[in-house]
């Protein structure tokens, strides 16, 4: 911790403690995101501060016995610090993006509140949205129904356009939480078919139907992992021509090696064989080789079938 950080915190802490007389040490520590020990250390510094002059009456008064004993803070004699400092530009910009995230995730009054709060912040700080966030949240109505189902502990049937298998499914789930990770929103829900937690992308949920049954309590929904989902055992290595090196930006690569000849070797985790087939079909002859040998056979079979099907309809070209 630098002195600057501590000074900034103390300058906010004085008006906070004035506005919340008798607040608990634990509550105050949580509000400032610090440990109780650090909070008491902060109070010990504040206790030495005040309108300089050196006379005892000039200093900020804190009942340190109550703070360390009962865990309750009383602060007085600090009228000159009645309001917090203005926001720095970085604070304002960071909070404005976070409000965009909340607005994108919510509907109705909460969304309106996120927008109006952002507007007030802009006015007070003179900052605007320098970071633009666009979240794939899917349909408002879907999100609204899911939020209601979560609040009412209701079971639902989703119409889900699964990407990995490239087809629409209709899973019955107990929805638990709507999470957003890096500009994509997901539903965490208990899948009755799998008897396990499953993650669904909100923008692929086409419809939600509330079912008669109440959902069961499956405990807390798991947090989404940081970064790419990677819970599969399967792995392939795909060697790509130089022009296809963009692939690593869009697909969950476990490892990337740039070869001296300009080609790229990318290791992918493969949870669904159909996912790999779709990738190989998409990349066509930009793929040089796939390891293990034979991993591309299903894609080849699919290519062959597509060609045959097209030729049946339109004649051989």
């Amino acid at each position, binding site marked *: 911790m630098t002195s600057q950080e501590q000074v900034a915190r103390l300058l906010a802490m004085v008006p906070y403690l004035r506005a919340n007389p008798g607040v608990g040490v634990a509550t105050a520590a949580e509000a400032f995101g610090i440990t109780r020990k650090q909070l008491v250390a902060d109070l*010990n510094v504040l206790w030495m501060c005040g309108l300089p002059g050196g006379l005892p009456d000039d200093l900020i008064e804190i009942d340190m016995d109550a703070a360390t004993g009962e865990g309750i803070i009383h602060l007085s004699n600090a009228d000159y610090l009645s309001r917090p400092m203005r926001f720095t530009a970085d604070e304002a910009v*960071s909070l404005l*993006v*976070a*409000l965009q995230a909340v607005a994108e995730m919510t509907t109705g009054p909460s969304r309106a509140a996120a927008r109006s709060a952002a507007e*007030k912040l802009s006015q007070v700080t003179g900052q605007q949205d320098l970071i633009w966030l666009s979240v794939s949240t899917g349909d408002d109505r879907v999100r609204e129904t899911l*939020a209601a189902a979560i609040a009412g502990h209701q079971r639902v049937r989703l119409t889900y356009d699964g990407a990995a298998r490239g087809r629409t499914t209709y899973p019955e789930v107990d929805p638990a939480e709507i999470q957003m990770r890096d500009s994509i929103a997901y539903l965490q829900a208990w899948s009755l078919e799998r008897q396990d937690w499953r993650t669904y992308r909100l923008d692929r949920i086409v419809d939600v139907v509330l079912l008669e049954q109440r959902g069961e309590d499956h405990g807390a929904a798991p947090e989404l992992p940081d970064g790419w989902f990677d819970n599969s055992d399967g792995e392939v290595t795909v060697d790509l021509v130089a022009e296809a090196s963009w692939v690593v930006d869009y697909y969950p690569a476990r490892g990337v090696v740039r070869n001296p000849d300009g080609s790229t070797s990318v290791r992918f985790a493969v949870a669904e064989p159909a996912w790999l087939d779709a990738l190989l079909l998409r990349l066509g002859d930009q793929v040089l080789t796939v390891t293990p040998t034979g991993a591309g056979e299903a894609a080849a079979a699919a290519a062959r079938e597509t060609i045959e099907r097209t030729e049946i309809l339109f004649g051989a070209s």
Partner: protein
Amino acid sequence: MAARKTERLVNLTILLLSSRRYVPRAKIRETVEAYRDLSDENFNRTFERDKDDLRAMGIPVETGSNERFFDDEPGYRIVRTDFELPPCEFTGEEAMVLGLAATVWQQASVADQTRQALAKLRAAGVDPDPSRLRALAPRLSVREAAFDPLREAMIERQTVRFTYKGGQQRTVQPWRLVLRNSNSYLLAFDCDRQAPRIFKLSRIAGAVSRFGPPDSFVPPDNEALGDYAEQLSIKSDFDVVLAIRSERAPALRRRGELEHSPIELPSGFEAYRVRLNQNNAVAEIASYGPDVIVLEPAELRAAVLAHLRGVLAVHGEARELSETGEQR
């Protein structure tokens, strides 16, 4: 030591904030206890550094003189209205979403900023309590190393220089950062090409160096920026007609409209008119394999077939029959 410095900086702030008039250096030295015992040289150095620290924190330390016509020693003050957060009232609902907003950022560099901002709001009497929104967990983190330096430079309106796509050195004025589809982009004015450009943060290699003074450019207004971002993004403007097997290829089906097929289709297939991006159409259609057949235009159909023969050339030489694939 750190505690003593904090104490000195807080006391200096309180002194300059409490005085309406400029406080002369001598008076500051005499009043703030920690300065009193320092030698002249030591005091000057410490005081200069302290002033810089306060200004770096955004505390507006003003320099000036109380006597307009006398060249006396400069004094210092902090004007209360420049220092204090202006009055702001938030409704209960707004306080609630602010509480949730404070939990959004995951990476420490930005999370610290939102936490400090929330602490200030609490100090202004706002009580952010997100507990009613507990079914929501929006989390945001940006993995690319270029994000922090670009964000800071953008806020300061400073020109930056970085290496793009492993080679080219680019000099740009950062206008906006755009987070979309798990990717991060920079919308900026490219000083070498004298035109707006979009850069993908994951393709910025190595350090981002800032140069030139802050406030060295003024970005266009939001409407113009929105137009640039729109122009530079991928557009779907290529009309095609596809036969899609029912329940399959949902990403294409949902975007399209059912259409009467110009020819008789195999059972289970229906014709859709879909708008795609011309550059991606072939690869996207090919990725669905036999679930999607191009009906129109004929050139696209030929291009997809050629693409699929490429797949066969890479993966299909070893075996003539497709049985092996179906065993999987």
